[in-house]
């Protein structure tokens, strides 16, 4: 015998009725149902991811331009006779010179530069040269001179903001055909832009002003920034954190650990759950009535926005905190009570530390929700156009500011397409803040969990 393996019982040629080798009809149906269910799941996740990718890619495609801006670097002679007519270099005196005079200096500088470089464009009108730079450019130049009077009489090369059309031309938003129909620009202006660009006098570079500047008027989207809105949102988040976290956690601990379980606490519980579902604009009306009309707090102020958002966030924080407290095993409470800890010691020494990751996650998600909230802020006047930075807290909490989501809303309502780009850019900034908050939530969760 060469084959040493013992013969197994051979499988029958036709499997018996109850063979395990052949799936019966019922099993086949079950397996098919399972395969279908998995396919639905994968399709659902695929759709969700596709929607997210599409959303992010359109926002980034539309908004990336807001972080870049086109500047013209053209030598400008700061004629002392214009800038400082009294000749004493006193900034107080120089403030009396209006921005209009600086506009003339810029136009003269442009024309001199064109003549000097031999750039000639057929049909280029004086109006085209005047409209080439932003209205903000002359204001910036004036600010620079007032900040440093020694510049008077010198030839300076200050990067000057170009108009939003010229900027849009370099970002692919404006074409020559559109310019022909556009009253705010002309094909000649675009040719001038090309010529200056070829000369190196025009460059598109990173625009930190978008983050730090205040909002600008409808006619100068190129100068609009998010500075005031970011500060306003930050102040409001500060107020929400300082008020909602302690109040929410204290309320949850009382309800969960101390309050007797009776009709009244049931009623409170139902009402908290309902408050979490109240539309945010209702909180805006409440804030308007209570904080502005009744308490007389100033409109557009972060203090009012913060209070309204606190009211809105409280139910979220209370629900998350109560869930986190409920998730702490009762055996830990028994253990602490069993060694003679009081109820408060039990909660603060044992239950609360264990519930901390859940509480923090709930709080940060509540904060993130509040950061993106727009509707209640519209009602308390935060939709106003604010160009002045607020003071540092606490005094600044009473100053008028804007807020990130309201700024986005505001910009999308403006006519100039350049504002659309700004709005998308602001959305990117808002998303980055939300991302940072979510990462903080994950980090805190990990950190607290590691301490068992």
């Amino acid at each position, binding site marked *: 015998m060469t084959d040493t393996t013992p013969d197994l019982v051979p499988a029958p040629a036709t499997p018996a009725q109850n063979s395990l080798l052949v799936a019966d009809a019922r099993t086949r149906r079950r397996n098919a149902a399972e395969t279908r269910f998995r396919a639905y799941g994968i399709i659902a996740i695929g759709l969700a991811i596709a929607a997210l990718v599409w959303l992010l890619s359109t926002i980034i495609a539309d908004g990336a331009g807001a972080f870049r801006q086109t500047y013209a670097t053209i030598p400008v002679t700061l004629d002392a006779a214009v800038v400082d007519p009294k000749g004493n270099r006193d900034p107080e005196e120089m403030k009396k010179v209006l921005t209009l005079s600086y506009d003339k200096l810029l136009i003269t500088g442009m024309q001199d530069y064109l003549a000097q470089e031999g750039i000639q464009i057929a049909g280029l009108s004086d109006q085209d040269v005047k409209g080439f730079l932003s209205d903000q450019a002359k204001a910036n130049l004036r600010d620079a001179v007032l900040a440093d009077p020694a510049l008077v009489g010198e030839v300076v090369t200050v990067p000057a903001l170009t108009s939003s059309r010229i900027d849009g031309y370099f970002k692919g938003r404006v074409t020559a055909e559109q310019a022909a129909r556009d009253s705010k620009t002309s094909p000649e202006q675009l040719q001038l832009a090309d010529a200056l660009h070829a000369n190196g006098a025009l460059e598109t570079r990173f625009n930190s002003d978008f983050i730090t500047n205040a909002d600008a008027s409808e006619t100068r989207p190129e100068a609009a920034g998010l500075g005031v809105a970011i500060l306003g949102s930050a102040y409001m988040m500060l107020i929400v954190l300082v008020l909602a976290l302690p109040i929410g956690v204290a309320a949850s601990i009382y309800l969960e650990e101390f309050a*007797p*379980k009776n009709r009244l606490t049931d009623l409170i519980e139902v009402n908290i759950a309902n408050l979490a579902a109240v539309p945010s604009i209702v909180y805006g009306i409440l804030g308007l009535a209570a904080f502005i009309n009744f308490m007389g707090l100033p409109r557009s102020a972060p203090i009012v926005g913060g209070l309204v958002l606190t009211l809105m966030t409280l139910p979220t924080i209370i629900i998350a905190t109560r869930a986190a407290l409920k998730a702490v*095993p009762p*055996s*830990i*409470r*028994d*253990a*602490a*009570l*069993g*060694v*003679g*800890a*009081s109820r408060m*010691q039990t909660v603060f*020494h*044992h239950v609360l530390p*264990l519930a901390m990751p859940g509480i923090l996650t709930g709080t940060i998600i509540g904060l993130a929700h509040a950061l993106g909230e727009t509707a209640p802020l519209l009602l308390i006047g935060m939709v106003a156009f604010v160009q002045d930075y607020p003071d540092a807290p606490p005094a600044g909490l009473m100053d008028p500011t804007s807020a990130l989501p309201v700024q986005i809303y505001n910009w999308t309502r403006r006519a100039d397409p350049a504002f659309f780009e700004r709005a998308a850019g602001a959305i990117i900034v808002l998303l980055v803040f939300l991302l940072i908050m979510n990462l903080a939530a994950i980090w805190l969760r990990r950190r607290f969990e590691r301490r*068992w």
Partner: protein
Amino acid sequence: MNVMANLERKLAQDDIKISAREVQVFYGEKHAIKDVNVDILDKTVTAFIGPSGCGKSTFLRCINRMNDTIDAARVEGKIVLDGEDIYDKRVDPVQLRAKVGMVFQKPNPFPKSIYDNVSYGPRIHGLARSRSELDEIVEKSLRGAALWNEVKDRLHEAGTGLSGGQQQRLCIARAVATQPEVLLMDEPCSALDPIATSQVEELIDQLRQDFSVVIVTHSMQQAARVSQKTAFFHLGNLVEYGATDDIFTNPQDPRTESYISGRIG
């Protein structure tokens, strides 16, 4: 365990530590404990046995007022500890629980270090004036729970990282650390394997020298092994209470007899 040694010790054991009179417990409408009268002796292990749901754990939890933490529970009657009614209005249950320690069915160490687990009780009751005194209490308690040699090199590691039997002994050390006079144990071995169980049983026998120990158990063998007195509960009634040897060899009540011989329960 030597029967003669048991008898000898009994002579010095006749001081009553806890006496319960006409104790009733209600969970909402349910009458869970009916008319229980029992005298628990000092320096003795008293076992409560009986089928599931007979109220033995409920009665145990009356002794340190753990039932207070359950909203629906209501206790009537009198439980006297060293001549003082523990259900008197003036009694603070927190103070009572420092005097009557408890070990639970499932090992439930705090999710903190071994040291912090044991030192927590002494710390909140202010039993140690200095760090070194606290260290001493921790060592004494861990030695008392026969755990010291296993954990002395890792006192600052998580108590939850120990094995089940070690965790339960840690819980015993934690209960012992507050220097109680009575130690209540609610099925302390039900989650443990046989080796860990025998370690804990040995420990209970040692603890008897310092405390009055009351243990609830499902296992009649365990009751026979560790206790000097046994109480048999059935449907909320205390059916029979007496010396362990008598209960197991010569039960007076037919219900006790059927339970012990395995016909009910």
